[in-house]
Structures are given as structure tokens and as C-alpha cells.
């Protein structure tokens, strides 16, 4: 009896180990497939740009051809890359701060008060989340032209400051806050706005972190709307600038490849440091209530 039990247990462990190995193999293959394009970009950044133009990207490792010349060009060459980088940085920082503050302000209104039209307005938040931006893109473009806001960062920031999905996320977060906090603030004589800025903003830190990452990443990678709005090359963002390099002339491809790889680095660093918030921010919409 004892023996059969032992044999059974043994086969069970074997079964589990087999399962574990199977899963690890499957997910390792998937991980390799997912890393390949980034890896190909990484090794290409050490190869001559003309090669890329001629042969495309591949995984061939020929260390004899490797050099740091693309990075020399990136860091010391004569080009606009760092202007684009700076512009993207400025635009991202302003966008994140403005979006978080305004969206949190609005979300608090939805979470803390009952007022007329509240439900209608909240349905509007949800409805806007389901309208593709591309639908309003052209009328908005025309409007910005009429208002003389073309080629101006304000046109990129203003329409998205009260950001529907960020408001939605903050509101969900704030619904869980203790109402006694607000009452305590009122008793202490704080104004309604004082309560928000002095009591609520500090407790929203984790929610801010998740949405800062999400909005920051979107701003850094944003391409469609800046493509329409920005005209002068000294205002180009990184995505716009990189895209001007796809025309094969001069040493464009050398700069394109090292610049493209380098453009991922800031986000990659943030990702490694704040992974939890990245995932929380990006998957926020799927978790209801």
C-alpha cells in the first residue's frame, strides 16, 4: 500500500516537473521572439548605416564590422537629434503635470460630490473614451488653424489635459477614499479646494504614479497629432525628427538607428524602476470598480 502511494507520488512529481519544463520552454521561446526586434535594433546600432539601408535588419553578428561610429555621430555629430530630444522631454513633462493636475481636479469633483447632471457628464467621459481620436482629428486640425494655434505646443497639450481615461482611473481610485477625510477638512475650516489640494492630492500618490507613467509614455511616443500640428523643424519632437531620417540621404540611417535605440532608453529605465506602475497604468481600464 505504502509503496503504491509512493509510486503514485513519484509519477505525480514527474508529471509536475514535465509541466514546468514545458511551460518554461514555451514562455522562453515567446520571450526570445519578443526580444528579437529590439535585439536586432541594438546590434544594428553598431553596424554601418549603409548596411542597414542595403540589407535591412538581421541578426548577423560580424564583430569585425562593429564600431561605435553611429553613437559618435549621435553624441558628437552635427544634427538636430538633441533638439528633438529636448523638445520631447519638455513636452512630456508639461503634458504629464498638466494632465495629472487637471484630471485629478475633475475626478475629485465626480467622486466627492453629488450634483445635477453628474451622471450625464460621467457617461460623457465614457463616451469620449470610445470615440477614435482620428474621427475628430481633421475638424480639430481645421479649428487649430482657424485659431492660429498651429505649430504651437499648446495645441498638443490643451485638448488632452482633461483626459477621459485618466479622469476615469482617478475617480475609481477616489471612490475608495474615506469621506471622513473631507468632513475633517471642513471642520478644520479648509475650503473645498483647500481640501482637494492639501488633503486629497497627498493620498493620491500611487494613482498619480500609475497615470504619470502612462501619460508620460504616450506623450513621449506621440506621433499622429504632432505630425499634423507641428510645422517648424526646431519644434520637432523625437518621433517627428526620427521620421525625417527615414529618407536615405547623407548619414541619416546611421543616426536613425542609434537615435531610435537611444529613444527607447529613457522609458526603459523608467520601466525597470517603476514596472508596477507601468502595468497598473496601462491595464487600468480593464479592471472595473
Amino acid at each position, binding site marked *: 500500500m505504502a509503496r503504491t502511494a509512493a509510486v503514485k507520488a513519484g509519477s505525480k512529481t514527474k508529471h509536475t516537473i514535465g509541466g514546468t519544463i514545458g511551460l*518554461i520552454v514555451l514562455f522562453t521561446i515567446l*520571450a526570445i521572439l519578443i526580444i528579437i526586434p*529590439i535585439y536586432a535594433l541594438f546590434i544594428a546600432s553598431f553596424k554601418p548605416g549603409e548596411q542597414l539601408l542595403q540589407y535591412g535588419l538581421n541578426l548577423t553578428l560580424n564583430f569585425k564590422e562593429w564600431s561605435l561610429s553611429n553613437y559618435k555621430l549621435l553624441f558628437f555629430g552635427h544634427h538636430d537629434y538633441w533638439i528633438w530630444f529636448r523638445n520631447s522631454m519638455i513636452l512630456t513633462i508639461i503634458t504629464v503635470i498638466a494632465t495629472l493636475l487637471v484630471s485629478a481636479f475633475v475626478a475629485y469633483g465626480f467622486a466627492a460630490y453629488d450634483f445635477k447632471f453628474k451622471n450625464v457628464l460621467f457617461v460623457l467621459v465614457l463616451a*469620449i473614451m470610445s470615440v*477614435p481620436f482620428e*474621427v*475628430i482629428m481633421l475638424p480639430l486640425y481645421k479649428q487649430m488653424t482657424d485659431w492660429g494655434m498651429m505649430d504651437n505646443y499648446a495645441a498638443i497639450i490643451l485638448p488632452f489635459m482633461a483626459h477621459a481615461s485618466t479622469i476615469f482611473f482617478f475617480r475609481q481610485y477616489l471612490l475608495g477614499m474615506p469621506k471622513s477625510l473631507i468632513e475633517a477638512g471642513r471642520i478644520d475650516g479648509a*475650503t473645498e479646494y483647500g481640501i482637494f489640494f492639501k488633503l486629497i492630492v497627498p493620498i493620491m500618490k500611487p494613482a498619480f504614479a500609475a497615470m504619470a507613467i502612462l501619460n508620460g509614455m504616450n506623450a513621449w511616443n506621440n506621433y499622429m497629432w504632432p505630425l499634423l500640428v507641428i510645422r517648424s523643424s526646431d519644434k520637432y519632437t523625437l518621433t517627428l525628427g526620427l521620421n525625417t531620417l527615414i529618407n536615405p540621404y547623407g548619414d541619416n540611417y546611421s543616426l536613425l538607428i542609434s537615435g531610435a535605440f537611444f529613444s527607447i532608453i529613457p522609458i526603459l529605465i523608467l520601466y525597470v524602476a517603476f*514596472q508596477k506602475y507601468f502595468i497598473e497604468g496601462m491595464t487600468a481600464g480593464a*479592471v472595473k470598480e
Partner: protein
Amino acid sequence: MIKKVFYSKKAAPYVFILPFVLTIALFWIGPIVNGVLLSFQNVLQDEWTGLHNYKRLFTDAIFYKAVLNSVKYMIGTLVLLIPFPLLFATLLNSKLMKHPNVYKSIYFIPALTSVVVAGTVFRLMFGESDQALMNQVIGLFGHAPIRWLRRGDTAYFALLLLCCWRWTGVNIMYFLAGIQAIPTDLYEAAEIDGASKWQQFKSITVPLVKPTTVYVLTISIYAGLSMFLESFMLWKGNNSPNNIGLTIVGYLYRQGIEKRNMGYACAVGIVLLVMVMIVNLVQLKLTGTFDKEDE
């Protein structure tokens, strides 16, 4: 007096939501209404043309091609980016899996890249030279190099692969969040009843993760039908041979920005909006999301 009203408890909620109301009115509702109005006009001549733009649109073969491409792309992403991530999430969540967090972190990385970088990388991987990665891969199987981005079927494959590369990891995260919300005692009870893992997946995971599936379905329909930049990057602009990469938004961009037919392009936008709404309503109806909310 104004100050007193501003600080009153009654006025405060309206002050709080004012930025939202203003933004929505100026930058969303205004443009949507304007888009509808413009779609009935010839903007350059500044004249009303009634249904002319729509009539033209429904007899425009290139527009049909764009719609077909977008719909095909959307269906492809639904087929690939819902069942597989759900299955992967289930397996990653299994007790047998070691270090799932390491894998999760890796799968998420493509979502950090911009469409410019991702699209350029894929365009170069699908290069025409026999040295380009995808041609090397098929070369391993003895296949001659292909001009991937000049043929409809292979171009479709390239677009889908790009999309899967970027979003598989994110969808796995969505499903993991959904799966981890399912009470574990359900699985324990099923285990005692002798249900196999596959039966558990079919009868517990799939039905209980449905709210997540509906969410992913909704955003995939939205994103699939309005895809543009991926194609814009793969073909270095809005022109692909025989329009194999032209999408609805690509056509909107071509007409509105490249050809300055603002009214006609706005009609394309309105048709897109209606399509997204109809497909999503049908989807929500079929998945029974409405019934649930009525309960």
C-alpha cells in the same frame, strides 16, 4: 459676492468639473459637430453640397479597399490577440510556472516603443534583400526571398506581426488581472470533482474572465478599425503598392491632409465613427454585456 459663491459647497462641484466641460465642448464635441457639418460641404469652395460627399464615398473603389483592409486587419487582430493572450495568461498563472514575473516584464517591453521606432524596425526586418531577417528565416526553409511589402498577403502578415509584437504582452496583463480576480476555491472544487485543467479553463476561466474579454474586444475593435500609423511607417508614408496598406484613417489622411478635400475626408471620419459604434454595439449585444447591466 462672487468669491463667496466660488467657495460655497454648492458651487464647488461645478468648479471642479469645469475644466472637463470646457475641454470636451471645445475640443471634442465642437470638432465632432463640425466634422458632421463639414462632411456636407465642399470646404475649399466653401459651399454646401448636401449628401454629395457620402454619395461619392459609397461609389469610391479606393475607399472600399481601405475599408476592406481595415476590417481584415481588425479581424486578424481579434483572432490573434484575444485567444492566445488569454491562454498564455492562464498558463503563466499556473502553479507549475516558475518566475512568471520575469517573463511578464519581458513581454511588456514592446509596448514601450513608439510606432515610429517599431514600424521602422519591422520595415527593415521585412526588407527585400535576402539578408533581411524575414527573408533569412524563410531561407532556412529553402524559400527564395520575398518582397514582403509589395504583396497583399505578405503585407497583411507583416502588419499583423507588428501588431501582435506590440500588444500580446499588454493583453496578457489584462487577462492576468482578470484571472487573478477569479476566486481560487472554484478551481479547488473543480479539482476535487476530477475536472481536467482544460475543462477548468473552459468552464471556469473563460466564462469568468468575460468582462476582461469584452474590454479587450472593445479596444481591439476601436484600434483595429482606426489603425493608420503602423501602415504609415511600414511603407514610409501613405502610399503602398496597389494600396495594399491603405486603411480608413489612411484614406482620411490622404483626402484631408494630402489632397485638401476636407469635406470628403470628414465624411470618411463620420463613416468610421459609425462603423466603430455599430461593431461595438453588436459585440456588446452578442456578449450579453447589456443584459448584465439591466439586472
